[in-house]
């Protein structure tokens, strides 16, 4: 119990960071983390030791995918996020660019990139989280980086002009 508790507690700040980067919305992110923790507590008896962190990332990643599927049927929440406008200006603008670049990725690409770059998971761990071979992780990572680069290189001025 206490190993489990300590492991989960230690992971919460990073889970919040990952969820925030995935969803771009503080409330949705913390909801996801809460659901992840509840899910983990409920299936604690199924956890046989091993990589607790990867397991928690797996739960969160799956819950986020479910959330996006639900949104696809009933789209509103994403929209409200697009609208939190005023922060586009000022010192956060640089951060907003990378946020928008991340938003231009597919969910799978974004997940891979964030798990590798932000959360420091190994390719093998990411493969486990996504339940795919390492080769698939590599190609998603490559596509994600190419897309972010293309976005930052060229899309930016276009966006500025439209707004």
């Amino acid at each position: 119990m206490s190993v489990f508790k300590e492991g989960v507690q230690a992971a919460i700040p990073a889970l919040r960071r990952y969820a925030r980067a995935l969803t771009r919305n503080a409330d949705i992110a913390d909801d996801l983390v809460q659901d992840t923790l509840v899910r983990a507590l409920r299936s604690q008896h199924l956890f046989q030791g091993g990589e607790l962190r990867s397991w928690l990332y797996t739960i969160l990643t799956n819950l986020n995918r479910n959330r996006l599927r639900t949104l696809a049927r009933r789209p509103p929440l994403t929209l409200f996020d697009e609208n939190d406008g005023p922060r586009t200006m000022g010192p956060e603008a640089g951060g907003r660019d990378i946020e928008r670049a991340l938003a231009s990725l597919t969910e799978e690409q974004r997940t891979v990139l964030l798990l590798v770059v932000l959360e420091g998971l190994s390719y093998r761990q990411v493969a486990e989280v996504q339940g795919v071979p390492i080769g698939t992780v590599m190609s998603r990572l490559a596509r994600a980086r190419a897309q972010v680069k293309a976005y930052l290189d060229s899309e930016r001025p276009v966006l500025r002009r439209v707004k």
Partner: protein
Amino acid sequence: MKDNDLPVTEEELHAFVDGELPPDRHEAVEAWLAAHPEDAARVGAWRAQSQAIRSRYRDIAAQPVPDRLKFERLRRAEMSRKVMAAAALIAVFLLGGALGWIARGTPPNAQDEFATLTAQALEAYKLYVVEVRHPVEVPGSEADHLSQWLSKRVGHPLRAPNLEPLGLKLVGGRLLPTKSGAAAAFFMYENTSGDRYTIYCARSKTPNTAMHYNAAEKASTVYWVDGNVAYVVSGAAERKRLWQVARAAYEQIEPAGSQKNSSGS
């Protein structure tokens, strides 16, 4: 030494950036990058991306964990949930009956309004979208006049959104009656191949709602309420496209109370 002669793959470049490259390939990759400036630039860009992502979200992991995410609190909640689950099952039956009884006499709710307005918008869509010579009362070339007129009649500042970035030109608009006898504004757009989309706007008493997509025969709608106005975007497009159009319209609607009263473009 033999390893150094193998050509470096794209995967190895990523592994290099992410610290996953086997140590015996480091030298080879570094030599490769020195000799291939384009790859070196890409690797540099990837590193800059990583840096930007980390610094954007660094603060969040440093913040104190909110109470609702504290382990003990969740664990206690989980314990009591198990106890409550059994009780709740019984309560649901009782409550379900009670709510059903209470709901008998409630006034028309958001769900009804949603259904009514969506149906009206779809009727208007079907009626006017096939009209070749007189699809609108006021042409898109008089957009300012159109917006002023419809705003006045509907009793709320309205403006035909600019959907040209999506390849949609404003055909124009007209005034329509709603079932309850109020005025509704109706804007029509079309692309170069003649596909038409309409936006139907009517006053609403229900609070703001999320956007709802509804697929009907031949045409689909996206409906939402924003600042006392209900909007229904209709079109014969697939969901993704309709969603794009609705989103563009949504983004151009100024939140209630912040109208700038600009009559220019």
